[in-house]
């Protein structure tokens, strides 16, 4: 498996906004008891990774069996979240273990934040060029 940096394009989240809505959305596959191909917002301002509720269910997690409750902040401050740990594959990189705050809402994207996405990967943003670069930690 490769550990050379891989580049990904910024993606328009709202076609009506065009350039103003470009965001670093990273395609990745999450593995629970099922695997799901999805994409996550690479968000250096987020303290933690966040998993929306429906995606957690699709991955096979049962809400009541997750006993570690965590508090989110920002616009998610009122949303209950529980800790889940799962495997993820980005591009052709080796799989990593990612911990998520599994939020009890679907009004949020998959967020890839400081703990622990940014502990596993080095990221360079080239917003003016509309791309970002990812590589496993060295």
């Amino acid at each position, binding site marked *: 498996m490769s550990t050379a940096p891989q580049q990904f394009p910024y993606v328009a989240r709202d076609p009506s*906004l065009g*350039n*103003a809505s470009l965001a670093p959305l990273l395609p990745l596959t999450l593995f629970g008891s099922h695997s799901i191909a999805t994409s996550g917002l690479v*968000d250096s*301002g*987020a*303290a*933690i*990774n*966040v998993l929306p509720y429906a995606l957690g269910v699709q991955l096979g997690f049962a809400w009541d069996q997750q006993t*570690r409750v*965590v*508090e*989110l*902040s*920002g*616009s*998610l401050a009122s949303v209950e*979240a529980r*800790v889940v*740990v799962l495997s993820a594959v980005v591009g052709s990189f080796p799989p990593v*273990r990612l*911990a*998520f*705050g599994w939020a009890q809402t679907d*009004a*949020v*994207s998959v*967020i890839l*934040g*400081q*703990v*622990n996405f940014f502990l596993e990967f080095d990221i360079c943003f080239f917003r003016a060029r509309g791309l970002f670069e990812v590589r496993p930690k060295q």
Partner: protein
Amino acid sequence: MSLTEVLPEVQSLSRLEKIRLIQFLAHELERDDGDLIEPGRTYPISSPDRAFTAAAALLQALEEDKGQS
């Protein structure tokens, strides 16, 4: 029309017309920038930007996960 084609014509303008051209270009650039964020539109920000206690809990969960594998 390319910049190379326009420049000779710009050079032939009077001083006053050049100043007006600068003002016009500055206005155009400002308008382009303003289009990036539209007034009245909602721009959601969902970053849990101060969830440090949650971050500590996730790190603890990862340590436990590492111990199990």
